[in-house]
């Protein structure tokens, strides 16, 4: 049951072979059985989920249902959910019950999907290993000593362990693609502006974008289809019709040109990762695609530019957490300044504080031009490189991450080394392009992800290539040892 595609689950629901209540209970049981050690789900929505599932069953009975009606899912705890705690992985919001629901969540609710719970994440989505969460780290089901990646580590680990068929995530610098790679599942971050950011707790507003985790590209497409679209309530949402993401999945990729950025395939690249990616590229080639070397001359500046833009926007966004209107407040503040300072010191973890300080520094008087303006200029250079590259190729391929999942604790005390684990994903966010990660093999028994990058709003082409690749391979169907058992 746990490895069935959304199409299969949906057919079973439509044919009344199983009810949504049974299906939801099935995955809730898997969460109860397996999540004690993984720590991927931090808030259960069991009671409300079973009510929503019964509602979905009624809709199916009455014929008023779609592909996602009755399908259970998990949401990253960055999305506001009315009446249910929304913590963003932080002590600051440990007691915060959202007064409204994020648009992306509402859209999935309207499609009839059933929210089983909220997933663990790096605090305020700042991290690449899920170790900065107030609720403790998440373990990677492929190897419990390693991290699941971050910041959407809970969603990725949960889908990998088959605790839910699909889950939402957000990606500011790689937070969907890197954990998808580390956990051996499929993840997509669409074009900036494609999914509404309304009700998605802001980290770096010009980079944040919601997306999906699933076993396969086809499942990811079905979920993304339901989440996407223009939203009045998000001023950066793009008013452009959403393509039918399922229509072109079956198209042949014969004649398609795939670009390989030479800057991502240097001698420094881990040899195991390189071999695995090259084999994946050969498979895509065998389906009739042309392979072409390209250059993104400024891409090596993406991590430096990101660590100005993201902290600057983070320091502005997180100034709302002041201990006054909502969130954590320190005990017996002696004056207003003490209230602000101690509430923020006690409510935020180390990485969040580091980024707030970085941001405050680069935005402080006299430094704005040298850092923030400079970074926004570098950002345009990086975007221009991609625009130039897409004149000659349809899609770009590379490794998703420079390594497989690393050990818990390995990079925790070395921020710069942690930041560099997103070296292949960050440029995509700076440019605002859609990107995804597809499982393409193993190194040391740990999954490797192939990153595919598309041109603006070409999610449908990305998903088409990923789906065609998954017709020729079965890496996406691999289930970590121990989790194949039915419970």
């Amino acid at each position, binding site marked *: 049951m746990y490895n069935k595609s959304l199409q299969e689950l949906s057919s079973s629901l439509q044919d009344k072979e199983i009810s949504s209540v049974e299906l939801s209970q099935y995955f809730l049981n898997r969460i109860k059985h397996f999540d004690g050690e993984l720590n991927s789900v931090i808030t259960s929505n069991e009671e409300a989920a079973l009510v929503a599932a019964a509602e979905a069953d009624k809709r199916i009975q009455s014929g008023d249902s779609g592909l996602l009606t009755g399908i259970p899912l998990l949401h990253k705890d960055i999305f506001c959910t009315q009446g249910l705690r929304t913590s963003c992985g932080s002590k600051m919001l440990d007691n*915060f*019950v959202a*007064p409204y629901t994020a648009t992306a969540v509402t859209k999935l609710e309207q499609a009839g999907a059933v929210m089983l719970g909220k997933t663990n994440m790096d605090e305020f989505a700042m991290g690449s290993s899920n170790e900065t969460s107030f609720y403790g780290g998440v373990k990677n089901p492929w190897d419990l000593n390693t991290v699941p990646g971050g910041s959407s580590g809970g969603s990725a680990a949960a889908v990998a362990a088959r605790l839910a068929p699909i889950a939402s995530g957000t990606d500011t610098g790689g937070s969907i693609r890197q954990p998808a790679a580390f956990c051996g599942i499929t993840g997509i971050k669409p*074009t900036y*502006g494609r999914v509404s950011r309304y009700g998605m707790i802001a980290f770096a507003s*010009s980079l944040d974008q919601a997306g999906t985790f699933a076993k396969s590209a086809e499942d990811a497409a079905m979920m993304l289809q339901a989440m996407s679209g223009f939203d*009045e309530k998000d*001023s*950066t949402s*793009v*008013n452009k019709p959403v393509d039918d993401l399922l229509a072109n999945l079956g198209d042949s990729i014969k004649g398609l040109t795939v670009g390989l950025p030479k800057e991502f395939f240097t001698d420094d690249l881990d040899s195991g990762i390189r071999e695995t990616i090259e084999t994946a590229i050969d498979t895509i080639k065998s389906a009739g695609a042309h392979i072409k070397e390209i250059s993104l001359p400024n891409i090596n*500046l993406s*991590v*430096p530019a990101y*660590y100005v833009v993201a902290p600057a926007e983070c*320091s502005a966004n997180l*100034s709302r957490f*002041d*201990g*006054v*209107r*909502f*969130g*954590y*407040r320190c005990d017996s503040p*002696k*004056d207003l300044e003490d*209230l*602000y*300072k101690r509430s*923020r*010191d*006690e409510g*935020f973890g180390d990485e969040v*504080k*580091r980024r*707030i*300080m*970085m*941001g*405050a*520094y*680069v935005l402080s008087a006299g430094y704005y031009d040298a*850092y923030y*303006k*400079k*970074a*926004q*200029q*570098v*950002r*345009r*250079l990086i*975007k221009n490189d991609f625009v130039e590259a897409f004149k000659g190729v349809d899609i770009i391929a590379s490794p998703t991450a420079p390594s497989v999942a690393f050990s818990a604790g390995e990079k925790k005390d070395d*921020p*710069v080394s942690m*930041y560099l684990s997103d070296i292949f994903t960050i440029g995509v966010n*700076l440019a*605002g392009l859609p990107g995804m990660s597809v499982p393409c093999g193993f190194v040391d028994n740990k999954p490797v992800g192939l990153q595919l990058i598309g041109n*603006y709003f070409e999610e449908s082409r990305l998903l088409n290539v990923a789906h065609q690749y998954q017709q020729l391979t079965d890496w996406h169907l691999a289930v970590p040892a121990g989790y194949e058992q039915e419970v």
Partner: protein
Amino acid sequence: MSIQSEDVLKIAHLARLGIQQEQVELYASDLSNIMNLVEQMNQVDTSDIEPMAHPLDQSQRLRSDVVTEVNQRETLQQNAPDIEDGLFLVPRVID
């Protein structure tokens, strides 16, 4: 770029972030390392490049000035640490 302890204290104050005295040194060294990474940006000349604020160069959309939200004071204040008569309470600011 090296960030000193006094810089850390100044930035922390700007961000209204209390930090523990014993962590100041660590912040100084972490932030210095991050700044060294950031300064790789100086490898490239950007003097005639327009800064990029939105990936699609979209500008902020305007909307008509009409009321779209209803009053939710009570719901919103359920998350507040301290309220009285519908107001948020903070320590006395003016004596």
